[in-house]
């Protein structure tokens, strides 16, 4: 079983985590196509992907850059670096 080496809690087996997938930030402005792209499309290609993991026993969130080809964690990302303001726009229907 793979281990995730996390700040504060150390190395933990991935069975203790929920995988939330690619870190996504809503577009700051959007039309219908841009919004649909945000909702559905993903960076599917192999390579470094920024992802969120939730450690259930501690209730902590982690963000890692992981190479989805080799399964190696490339970097630990500070949550502050992936923050955003909730947008406030209307999409014309």
């Amino acid at each position, binding site marked *: *079983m*793979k281990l995730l080496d996390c700040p504060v809690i150390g190395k933990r087996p991935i069975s203790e985590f*929920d995988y939330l997938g690619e870190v996504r930030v809503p577009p700051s402005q959007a039309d219908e196509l841009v919004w649909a792209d945000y909702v559905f499309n993903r960076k599917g290609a192999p390579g470094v992907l920024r992802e969120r993991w939730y450690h259930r026993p501690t*209730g902590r*969130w982690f963000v890692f850059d992981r190479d989805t080809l080799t399964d190696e964690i490339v970097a630990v990302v500070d*949550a502050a670096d992936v923050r955003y303001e909730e947008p*406030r726009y*209307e*999409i014309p229907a």
Partner: protein
Amino acid sequence: MKYRLDPQPLEWIDRSESMSFDFEGQRFSGFKGDSLTSALLAGGQKLLGRSFKYHRPRSALSLANHDVNALFQSAEATNIRGDVTPVSEGLKLRACNVNGTLANDKDTYIGLLSRFLPVGFYYKAFHKPKKFFPFWERLIREKAGLGEISTQWSAIRQPKQYGFCDLLVIGAGASGMQAALTAADAGADVVLVDENPQIGGSLDYQLVNESDAASARRQLKQRIAEHPGIRVFTGHYACGWYTDHYVPLVGPEGIIKMRAGGVIMATGVMEQPAVFRNNDLPGVMLASGAQRLIARYAVKPGQRAVVLCGNDEGYRAALDMIEAGIEVAAVVDLEWLDKRGHWAEQVKAKGIPVLEQSAIYEAKGKDALKAVVVAPFDGRSCDSGQGKTIRCDLLLMSVGWAPAAQLLYQSGSKLGYDKKLQQILPRELSPGIHACGRLNGAFTLEQRLADGERAAKEAVAQLRGKTVETELTRFRDDRAHSHDWPIIGHPKGKNFVDYDEDLQLKDLINAAKEGFDNIELMKRFSTNGMGPSQGKHANMNGIRVLAEITRKTIDETGSTTARPMFHPVPVSALAGRRFRPERLTPMQAWHTANGAKMMEAGRWLRPEFYGAPAQREQAILQEVQAVRSGLGIIDVSTLGKIEVMGPDAGRLLDVVYTMKMSTIKQGMTRYALMVDDSGVIVDDGIVGRVTDDRFYVSATTSHADAAFRTLSLKIQELGLNVRLVNRTGSLAALNLAGPASRKLLSTLTDVDLSEESFPYLGMREGTLCGYPVRLIRVGFVGELGYEIHMPATAALEIWETLIKAGKPYGIRPFGVEAQRVLRLEKGHIIVGQDTDGLTNPFEANMAWAVPLKSKPWFTGKPSLALLQARCQRRLIGFRLPKGYNGELPKECHLIIENGEMAGRITSIAYSPALGRVIGLAMVDLPLAESASALEVRVDSGAMVTLEPCPTPFYDADGARQTADLTEVA
């Protein structure tokens, strides 16, 4: 036991304890420590099994857990590997895969038909005409498989455990033992694992008669036994290498899941057979197999032997045979004698004839080896015209080795063919992976010890974070120990490449001819290496054959992927102890004591209804009526319960839920609907405001953890100043519902329950039975009612107090089923039942919960804005006529319009309050808006007419939720 030798220096058997067992109806005995195979061979039973396809006679080959043609079964187990399974008293065994008895197998005729069954024959026959295929398939299935199972067997589960170490050394032969010692001396926490019951590896059978090996053996074993830094697991095999050095060790007591900092592979090599006609006859063995048989079990493999040599090791084996009193009729060397070392000289000195540049052209015998035909060999083929027959009952094959590199491959390490050693060797090792010993091309004892030491030093340095130059090649031998073509053609075939699958040389050649000339395609078409030994003695020769046919190098030819398991692993060991976490509310004991039928809701157990299963419908009806007419009480402790606090708490809830939560007045609650980014409904619940900066959220049972996770994710994403506390487990909850609820509760709490000070949807804190509680005026079941959230520790006492005090009002506990009916009467949806994986709030008829205009943002808002105009279906209410007594529609029966599917029923139940069947249906637009009648198809195929009607079905203006009906009446 006519084949039992005098005591051998390192034998595993304990002659003081004998055990007897039955094999094919005959009595045999062996000693403690014997394997089934060794005991049978000692007792003169040479025929041990039948081959998979042709039912040819087979016997022992390797004695190393590769002998899949000697599989036995008992009443308790099947596919028992005789070569490694210890004897035990009273066993009753028979051979697997025989039709009749082992001696008299009625399926041996299949072997005679082999010319009609070329490689891949089943792809080319039986399918025409189509209607006959099931007939042929039945016949084929009858012949398929090896052992028989019994479906009556009970489950065995062996507990597993986790293990940890700095360095895992796999294989306790010379190099592995040395590596373990070197690493442990350097301070590493070492685990040394070996599949055999004793450490020592080939030192103990191949070099058992070598005097210089003896002192090394003694020292290594003694130091390992005494070393505090080494834990030894014998009788365990590493079944696979998994990410981050996670290596399960499978042993007789179960699996130890070892997590290592690094792994030293000292897994050694697997001896490979030579391919020649009848190379499968009982009596034809791997040289190392014969050596194991003698050294470990003191069993004589035969009386008169011929040894086929492609390396020095064959000469060592010949000497060992002589030592064991076996006559060696000849040594047949594939090459010139002068290539060989001192063992060959010793053989020569003993006057044993050595036939150079020769090979076995064919073996002879019906059920066992009687003679071999030796013919001159030019490195590729035999000159069969000059064949010479030598009488023998034992032929040892010592023509080469394949690395036991399965785990090395799994670790992502790269290997390549070394022409000098004629062996596949490690080239590039993955981080934390090390290799040494014969696996790495170190063959002499000195090389193996030095290589073990080297690997250990490198491993320890790497563990400590140092960058090290690996010197993989430093202690490798400079001469071949394998022949590059130990393969002899024969016009009559029966020269097997894969014993498991009965594949002959021509099968591989023909597969390649047909275009399956890629190693993986060849495997899949011919099934080479797909049997229970997973190609342990078939893959290397298969690669050599394909390389030869395609005129490619071994590296260009490549090899098939080595997947776990290294040896097959019992399901009992994999399954392990059965963990089924079950979560109970504090009222569980009361529920069961009062006849609740419990149901599983995720990990929780909840009362479905109270009463005997036979009275199910009646019990549910009575529970519903109790709530409507008097008083009901339901345990809702499984709801998610979350405290949301801090300056940004309102902002958080506004983002997560569709409706505006930041405007809820203190002491009030609001329905809360959660959708995902795409606008699909995922959960509902309520949000209540406790203080200005503090809210209390409830979520559905099944979504409780996910709701908490979503809230905490949004805090992270938006960087909000909010604290969350998940109180799902520390608080219990119940819903006291019915016209008498206020009256009852007022006697037990200090909260002012009057309508003016505690209105519908209000939330109050106070005490109940002296405990701090939170009361919420909820309307899910459609009566005056209070959800009571209380400390889990006090919940049972409060529950029992309410039950007792509620007696005069006819209080009745109700379960999930009654609640479903009650909420249906009110037209409330259940997320996941009335909605599916694509349902949005507009379809669920909840446009009122989607404030697109008044709220600037919430999760999924843009999607809902787009979906509003594109709704394709809608949830509507329907009813059946009063007194309807026809066939009842069920949930998920289809609405049919003009012969086309137009929707489905999502909920349906008999409403005692209305005296008729009511339900909800998801119906396509515009039908949902226009139809005055809907047709639903029921189980019998008949159509039943539903009458669309508005919801709620019951108490549409909600009067009962606010009025204290006992007083009104």
